[in-house]
């Protein structure tokens, strides 16, 4: 990825929180929770890596927070989260291009996993990305894509070790664009 050249001003969190008034598919308690967290989120300088070439020349990697692990990888630790609901597994899994719903499970405990289990492209659109690559819309699909668990309440490990490990692997594979896909 391109080196970060400039940082933006932090967003006004009070204004962002007010905008979470109505989302048709988000229930009232979740909206209340999210507003409260936005208001408490410390201001961050926004990192910025300018896109220096057209998408049609960029190698793209996808990152999903669905907690996807292949059957030949260790599963995410749902049992410990069940024992301690404040805890989250903050590890990550590399997901090779070509992985399908037949090869992997979805471990996020806060969503209905049936859609992604039926069609992995609902949460990690690897086949759609390959199609865009074949049609020249993007320059290429990276060999490796990534997943970690969503709903991490205290993301210390995610920031300190998981994110740097993922970005290092992306850099080693000459990835130009990372698209994070929340669930």
């Amino acid at each position, binding site marked *: 990825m391109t080196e970060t050249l400039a940082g933006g001003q932090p967003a006004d969190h009070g204004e962002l929180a007010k905008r979470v008034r109505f989302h048709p598919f988000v229930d009232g308690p979740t909206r209340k*929770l999210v507003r409260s967290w936005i208001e408490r989120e410390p201001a961050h300088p926004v990192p910025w890596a300018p896109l220096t070439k057209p*998408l049609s020349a960029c190698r793209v990697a996808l990152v999903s927070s669905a907690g996807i692990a292949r059957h030949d990888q260790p599963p995410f630790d749902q049992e410990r989260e069940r024992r301690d609901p404040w805890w989250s597994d903050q590890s990550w899994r590399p997901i090779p291009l070509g992985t399908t719903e037949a090869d992997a499970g979805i471990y996020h405990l806060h969503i209905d*996993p049936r*859609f*992604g289990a039926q069609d992995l492209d609902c949460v990690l659109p690897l086949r759609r990305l390959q199609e865009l690559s074949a049609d020249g819309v993007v320059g290429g699909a990276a060999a490796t894509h990534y997943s970690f668990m969503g709903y991490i309440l205290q993301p210390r490990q995610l920031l300190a070790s998981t994110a740097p490990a993922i970005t290092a692997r992306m850099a080693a594979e000459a990835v130009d664009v990372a698209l994070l896909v929340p*669930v």
Partner: protein
Amino acid sequence: MIPEFTASVGAPRVAGIEFPFGRPLGLPGDRAGQRAVLTAALEVISRARTPGTVIQLPFTWPQSPRDARADPPVPPPIVQLIKRKPWLAVKLLARDIPDPRQPTAN
């Protein structure tokens, strides 16, 4: 999806979409729809010119919120805990997260 939340943590470019949780690209088997969403999300990367840009994608979910509702097979552990101990909701709202306990020995 809640783009305001994503923007608040400092994401450089955010594509918002009014789709239900668990299927951000669209319905299972809807190849054309998934492709359109992925293409539009990638275009945000080239369209955004300033850090923190949020662009709302122009897609409409084909079901009503009632019909689209899909919960996890069992309520998430934190939801079960708050049901048992409602006073802990204050800590969750305040993001006052207890330090993790040591793993329970088997």
